[in-house]
């Protein structure tokens, strides 16, 4: 992986973000929301509305508005929320950090469960474990997360009373309680991830096990364990990186639903509230940040892929 590759990749990302910015701006332009009306209320006089519109720059030509908006974005200024009057950037990034914690825990849980499950299912094809893994996968893929979330809530929180139903406690405030609040949403999100990755892992492992190079590794007299870890796992994991990166896209969508159900003040919930309140700067910031997260996740996946697979070390 060379520096040229990396810089080209970063340039491409910047370009992607510019396109996203144009789209986000265009979409919010056609939304039936008038910032002046939102701010002053329905009973404001036309003169007051016009004055405010001029002050906000809403009477400027669209391209100039876009330019002003982009210029402040580049300076880290996402605007001021029309709902709270607070700067949008810090609110959104704080929400993002909570969502990222949720996502990171889900991905971690997924890796811990899905990778061994897929490998074991491949090693014991047709066994009870394999059937169980398939069942989990089909469930995870076919059941939407709002159903899973409800199920998790009813069983773990309501019937068994093991977990708090909803809400969010920062880990820095009360660690144990914070963890307890994370369990249900993490379970919900990771089920889908586990489904994807376990299936992928199973089929990849089966392919790699049948390969000549695994046979060659066995023929060297290596321990079965060594063959599995060094040769099978290492090669079977490669496509999983791609699946995880693609799943970040799913995560961003799924997290909106899950955060809403479990009342977690993450970026998804923040975006939803912004839309409900026609809070244009928050909508724009939320959409941009989500797109940015996706772009970064893809970049990270590409880098991980290049590090893991020498065939992809683009020169």
């Amino acid at each position, binding site marked *: 992986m060379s520096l040229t590759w990396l810089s080209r990749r970063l340039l491409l990302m910047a370009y992607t973000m510019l396109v996203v910015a144009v789209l986000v701006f265009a979409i919010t332009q056609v939304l039936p929301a008038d910032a002046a009306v939102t701010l002053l209320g329905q009973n404001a006089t036309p003169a007051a509305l016009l004055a405010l519109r001029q002050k906000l720059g809403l009477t400027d030509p669209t391209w100039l508005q876009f330019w002003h908006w982009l210029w402040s974005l580049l300076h880290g200024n996402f605007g001021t929320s029309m709902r709270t009057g607070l700067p949008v950037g810090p609110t959104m990034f704080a929400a993002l950090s909570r969502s990222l914690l949720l996502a990171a825990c889900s991905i971690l849980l997924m890796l811990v469960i899905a990778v061994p499950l897929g490998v074991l299912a491949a090693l014991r094809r047709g066994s009870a474990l394999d059937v169980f893994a398939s069942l989990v996968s089909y469930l995870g893929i076919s059941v939407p997360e709002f159903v899973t979330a409800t199920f998790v809530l009813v069983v773990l929180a309501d019937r068994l009373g093991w977990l708090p139903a909803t809400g969010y406690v920062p880990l820095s405030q009360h660690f144990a309680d914070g963890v307890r609040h994370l369990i249900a949403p993490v379970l919900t999100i990771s089920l889908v991830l586990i489904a994807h990755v376990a299936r992928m892992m199973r089929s990849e492992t089966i392919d790699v096990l049948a*390969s*000549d*190079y695994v046979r*060659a590794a066995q023929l*060297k*007299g*290596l321990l079965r364990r060594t063959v599995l870890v060094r040769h099978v796992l290492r*090669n079977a994991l490669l496509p999983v990186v791609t699946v995880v990166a693609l799943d970040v896209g799913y995560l961003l969508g799924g997290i909106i639903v899950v955060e809403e159900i479990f009342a977690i003040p993450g970026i998804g919930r923040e975006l939803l509230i912004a839309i409900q309140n026609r809070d244009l700067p928050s909508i724009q910031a939320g959409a941009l940040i989500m797109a940015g997260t996706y772009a970064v996740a893809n970049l990270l996946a590409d880098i991980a892929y290049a590090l893991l697979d*020498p065939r992809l070390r683009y020169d």
Partner: protein
Amino acid sequence: MLLSINDLSVRFATAAGTADAVASLSFAIEEGETLAIVGESGSGKSVSALAIMGLVPNPPGRVTSGQIVFRRRNGSTEDLLRASSARLRDIRGNEIAMVFQEPLAALSPVFTIGEQIAESLRLHQRKSHADAMRMAVRMLGSLGISEPEMRARSYPHQISGGMAQRVMIAMAMACRPRLLIADEPTTALDVTIQAEILSLIRQMKEETGMAVLFITHNLGVVAQIADRVAVMYAGRLVEEGPTKQIFSSPRMPYTSGLLASVPRLVTDDSPLVLSAIPGEPPSPLAHPRGCAFHPRCRYAVKGLCDTTPPPLRDLGNGQAARCLRIDEIVGGAT
């Protein structure tokens, strides 16, 4: 005797029924000898090699009978079919090594060539990583690979098929095995590279005194490399003997057919005659009754060849053949 296989049978359970891939096969390899096993695809030659290495895929395959006795470096003998997995691991890659038909597929895409050669040195000779890598580089150099240091740091996708086969040989030769099993090692390569690989194997053999079990369907290759030839058909050994003898006076009609189907150079007074054996090799799911070759054999007699399985008959001169009409078809039928 370095390796002797007695009454080996390997059976595959498939959805369509059981297939006798190898049926009571017996042969032996002397120290330092090159034995070529010849046969069409499906004749059981590769499965026999896998059985020696203890790697018959199970399921669906299973060794149902037999012994594979190997004499180890320290003089002790080991039945490879009954040895503990620890013993087998100690022998694999160390005393018996193998090269395959598709060298590029046999190299893991995520490790450098040097690392893959060094792997067995570190395992069997307990070399440090640095030592093993140095030895790998030397190995590559001795196999005629230019810039071995650079090559050792290459990944499999950066090299050609011919180079990959050299790397496979380096990998196999790393611990100086006493037996090299070469399963169609030149089939996937260009003709010019084929010759290079063959001479490389010969060179390694001279340097180390190892024996070679060479599995191929290419009789031209056999003539160049083998001391003895074993011909397999439908999972059975049908003829065996010293290479020269088999080439000059084959006694089993299948062997004759194989020899006749090798294209020869055309000269003015002898036009190219290329004869093919009629029909196709039998499905391992349903071997013909009697002599398995009888449906394709021009000498087959009704009421004899289609009912009685022929025994492998020792002809006294180091040659043995499996044919009921062996005395009637004298002097290498073609």
